[in-house]
């Protein structure tokens, strides 16, 4: 094969290859743009009866979202309720076993006991958004409450205002931070990290508007409750089998 023939044949390969390559590149760029927030409205369901308090969700959340490992910073956490026969109720944070294992004490004194996973409720009527003096926190079109950490001045008003204690001040950036339902995952069609790793399916994630989904089925088949309904925050995290002692 002489050089001319070789170049001619090569050009037959290269030109369509280049065209296809450009097309592929455009396609992947379009896939990222394809996400349409107006088509989604996210919510979560939590089956209290299924939680075994293993704390894998807490660990996975910290890993996925680079939350500081110290036991004061949580985007999601698990509470253990211990209601004794004398009526006292103690609540303990299962922090992914950072502070060691949980002791039960004398079992004969227990009336009932259970674990309750908690996270930002992504309220439809979020108090944190109302109080932010610089408008750094807002509700997205798909119903997730986010924080703009460039705009946040770290005044802690939102941390005070959240009735669920779901926010914390990032110790490095000195800005407010909170659960985003793993926004970077759900917009790619993945599950939030806590839902992904939960071994007992205690957490169910989905679109509140979809007609058939695990979340919709959960909502149809269970008696549901939200945390602190009297505050009219309209949480999008629904609990089944929730005890009245849970605040």
């Amino acid at each position: 094969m002489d050089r001319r023939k070789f170049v001619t044949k090569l050009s037959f390969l290269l030109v369509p290859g280049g065209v296809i390559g450009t097309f592929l590149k455009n396609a992947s760029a379009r896939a990222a743009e394809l996400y349409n927030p107006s088509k989604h409205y996210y919510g979560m369901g939590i089956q209290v009866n299924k939680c075994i308090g293993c704390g894998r969700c807490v660990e996975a959340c910290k890993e996925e979202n680079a939350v500081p490992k110290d036991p004061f910073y949580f985007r999601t956490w698990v509470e253990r309720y211990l209601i004794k026969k004398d009526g006292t109720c103690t609540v303990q944070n299962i922090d992914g076993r950072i502070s060691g294992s949980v002791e039960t004490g004398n079992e004969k004194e227990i009336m009932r006991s259970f674990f309750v996973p908690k996270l930002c409720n992504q309220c439809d009527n979020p108090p944190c958004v109302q109080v932010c003096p610089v408008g750094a926190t807002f509700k997205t079109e798909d119903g997730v409450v986010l924080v703009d950490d460039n705009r946040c001045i770290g005044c802690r008003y939102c941390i005070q205002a959240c009735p669920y204690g779901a926010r914390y001040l990032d110790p490095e950036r000195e800005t407010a931070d909170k659960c985003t339902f793993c926004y970077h995952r759900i917009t790619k069609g993945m599950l939030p990290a806590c839902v992904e790793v939960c071994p007992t399916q205690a957490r169910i994630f989905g679109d509140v508007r979809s007609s058939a989904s695990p979340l919709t089925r959960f909502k149809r088949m269970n008696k549901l409750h939200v945390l602190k309904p009297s505050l009219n925050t309209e949480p999008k995290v629904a609990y089944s089998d929730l005890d009245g002692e849970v605040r």
Partner: protein
Amino acid sequence: MRTPFHKIPDSLIRILVVFVILVGLALLLRFLLPSSLKDRPTFVAATVEREMAKPVRYAGSNVCADCHEEFNLKKTGYHRNLSCETCHGAARDHAENPTEAKPTMPRLREFCVRCHTYNASRPTGFPQINPASHNPLKPCIVCHNPHDPKPLTVPHECGACHAEIERTKSFSPHVQLACATCHNVPEQHKVSPRVITATIPGEREFCGKCHAKDSQVKETPKIDLATHGEKYLCWQCHYPHMPEVD
């Protein structure tokens, strides 16, 4: 020397100077500040974009099935609903670069025990053990395959169907009692369990055989059947598979 300004009061000029500086600053800010800090829709969009661009660390279990056969083994076992990354940790790096980055492989007893230690707060029926008495110091994976965990001896008696009750009973003072001690189980119950049912004790005197104050059985909590609990049957207050005693 008379300047055109000499009639303007000195104080006014100073106010003007301050005013000019303020306007200058405002103009400077207008052009220097990025639009993402001034315009709400812009900064909202910028935040959403930044949030979406954050790195994913958990790959999601569907990715694992492409290469790993264990995925199929797991599909039918009790761990079928567990995500691979529940035990193996975040594996996005491994999915993208399988030879370089390796996920964790927990082999120690401490790992399994985090979910499977008996804890009163755990839901009834969840498989739990007492690590102090359940083959102490032996790693769990010696006997149980984590991708398809089973009890070593497959339950073929009552526990095959009533596993939850059997596990609950294993922690109760009644652990030594066989099911047949209290239940009369016809052989046909194993064939058509809903048509031919096992019996349940129907009267207080049955429990009284061990727990009445004149019972000959030793070391059981004793009560006076005549005064204790009035009209109620024993199981209306005490769950026989895990009797609560004060």
